[in-house]
């Protein structure tokens, strides 16, 4: 108890310094949590697009980005005929711009695609989709920022399209996107005869391995991956995840430097006090434990404050209409645990030098120190 009191007393003795350290860790934790959660949410949404009513994605082997993938239409047609395939939907992804909106995701899909066939249509009739080449269906948010209704003509890229429907999805990318008939999209993006991916729904899920082997054997330039497999291996997702953790890690590094600075000051300003503890029988380990205890306490307070601030911030982002559907505030326990552990490790790392210094203090010299 007295040991704990010694730890707390020293933090209370320099309240502002301790507060700044806690704030440093808190901001780092909040930043890491926010960046990781937003990016994981974005990845989740993107993979949600790909896995919509499907289990396997087929795309061009060795492409760094699905926007560069070219899957021949003939392959899509042939695969759709395989007995194990319930349905195969070719999807073409493209990025277009509109007035005031530099990036809009465009989906070239068939009328049978789940995004069209199973979506909630707020306006328009799904039966009219793909009847004319210049028809488009807008996601709810895209309709909102383009100020478009059914019947409107909207400029998209170098052309003007006729809005025939507005649909609502739970996915931010889709909600802010434009759906075109596949043929129109192929023409618009100069990708005639190809799609970006084919999303596959099998009749029986246990046929996945057999399906992938058939793809490998018959289309060496293509690869089929199950959704979970794709999420793990897709390089863009890996880059995004690594970036998120790296950004968060940099934040924690700065927080750790703050803790190190605080702990160094803490040790240097009470050399005599540490000497007194040594004279009264404190071992080097007990002295080190006291310093590490202080930094751990700073880290714990920082982590708790950071998690609170980060969570509130994420919920705040979710309330912003423009970001509707983009921010997935599903706090994953594993992410929170990793963030807390990293914060603690940062605190401990920040206390390494101060603790080593404190443990080396020679009582006899420190007692002469006035």
């Amino acid at each position, binding site marked *: *108890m*007295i*040991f704990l*009191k*010694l730890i707390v*007393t*020293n933090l*209370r*003795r320099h309240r502002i310094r301790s507060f700044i350290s806690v704030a440093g860790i808190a901001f780092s934790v909040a930043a890491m949590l926010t960046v990781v959660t937003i990016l994981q949410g974005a990845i989740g949404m993107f993979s949600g697009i790909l896995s919509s009513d499907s289990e396997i994605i087929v795309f061009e082997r060795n492409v760094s980005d699905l926007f560069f993938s070219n899957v021949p239409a003939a392959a899509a047609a042939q695969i759709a005929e395989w007995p194990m395939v319930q349905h195969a939907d070719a999807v073409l992804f493209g990025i277009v711009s509109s007035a005031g909106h530099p990036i809009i995701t465009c989906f070239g899909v068939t009328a049978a695609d789940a995004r069209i066939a199973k979506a909630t249509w707020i306006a328009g009739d799904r039966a009219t989709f793909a009847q004319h080449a210049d028809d488009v269906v807008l996601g709810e948010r895209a309709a909102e920022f383009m100020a478009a209704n059914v019947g409107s003509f909207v400029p998209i890229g170098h052309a003007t399209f006729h809005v025939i429907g507005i649909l609502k999805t739970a996915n931010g990318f889709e909600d802010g996107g434009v759906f075109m008939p596949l043929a129109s999209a192929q023409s618009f993006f100069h990708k005639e005869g190809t799609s970006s991916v084919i999303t596959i729904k099998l009749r029986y899920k246990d046929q996945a391995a057999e399906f992938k082997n058939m793809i490998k054997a018959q289309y060496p330039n293509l690869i089929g991956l199950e959704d979970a497999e794709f999420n793990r291996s897709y390089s863009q997702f890996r880059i995004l995840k690594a970036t998120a953790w790296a950004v968060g890690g940099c934040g924690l590094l700065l927080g750790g430097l703050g803790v190190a600075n605080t702990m160094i000051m803490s040790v240097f300003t009470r050399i*005599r*006090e540490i000497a*007194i*503890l*040594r*004279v*009264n*029988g*404190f*071992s080097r380990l*007990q002295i080190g434990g006291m310093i590490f205890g202080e930094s751990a306490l700073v880290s714990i307070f920082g982590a708790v404050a950071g998690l609170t601030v980060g969570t509130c911030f994420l919920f705040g982002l979710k309330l912003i209409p423009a970001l509707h559907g983009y921010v997935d505030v599903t706090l994953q326990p594993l992410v929170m645990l990793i963030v807390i552990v990293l914060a603690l490790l940062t605190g401990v790392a920040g206390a390494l030098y101060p603790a080593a210094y404190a443990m080396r203090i*020679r*009582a*006899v010299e420190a*007692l002469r120190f006035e």
Partner: protein
Amino acid sequence: MRVNEQEMGRGRVVLRAEDVWKSYDEGTITVLKGIAFEAIEGQTVALCGPSGCGKSTLLHLFGGLDAPDRGRVAVNGIEVNRHRNLLRLLRHEVGFVFQLHNLIPDLTLEENCLIPTVAAGTKHKTALDRLHQLADRTGLSHRLGHRIQKLSGGERQRTALCRALMNRPKILLADEPTGSLDEQTSATVFALLMDMVATEGVTLVMATHDRGLAERCDRLLEMHDGRIHEVQYAR
């Protein structure tokens, strides 16, 4: 100078220094020059001498806080600089009282006194019982919950005395324990120190400039130029 047990009266030698040399600043300042010293159990010994004569250094050597350049220091028959467990020496065998009380200002009197028991891993209840016993005898019972800043100089030094005796050490090393107190308080604290030492059966080695206090100890050793020049039996 060596004093044999017969001269000092019968008793077990608890502190011994043999031909102890100690210098600082890479040997340019030699503080102790072949010190020989013995103290027996329960004895009170005063070390007198001018500033810088080596009184504090000798106390530090006895407490294991420093090591001699040459010679041998033993506590309870075990050589200090080869002591297998210096922590045991500091936790259970010697207690220190300094001129400046060296208490932790943000802690209460009680918390300060409990520090040695925390270091030694003593059970909290046992430690509290001991503290209440010492606080009763030093007249500090009513001040246990007070922070050090709220205590007078005399109370602080009495607190330091309590803290030094918490783990029931057999040897008390006091470095100018009344040096920062006024005459009246100094006399009170010294009387209490001698009373506690007698009651607890502790061997006291005290460095002091105060000749009057020193003469009230069993022995008075005069230190000068790094040597013990005389041994005077005050009583």
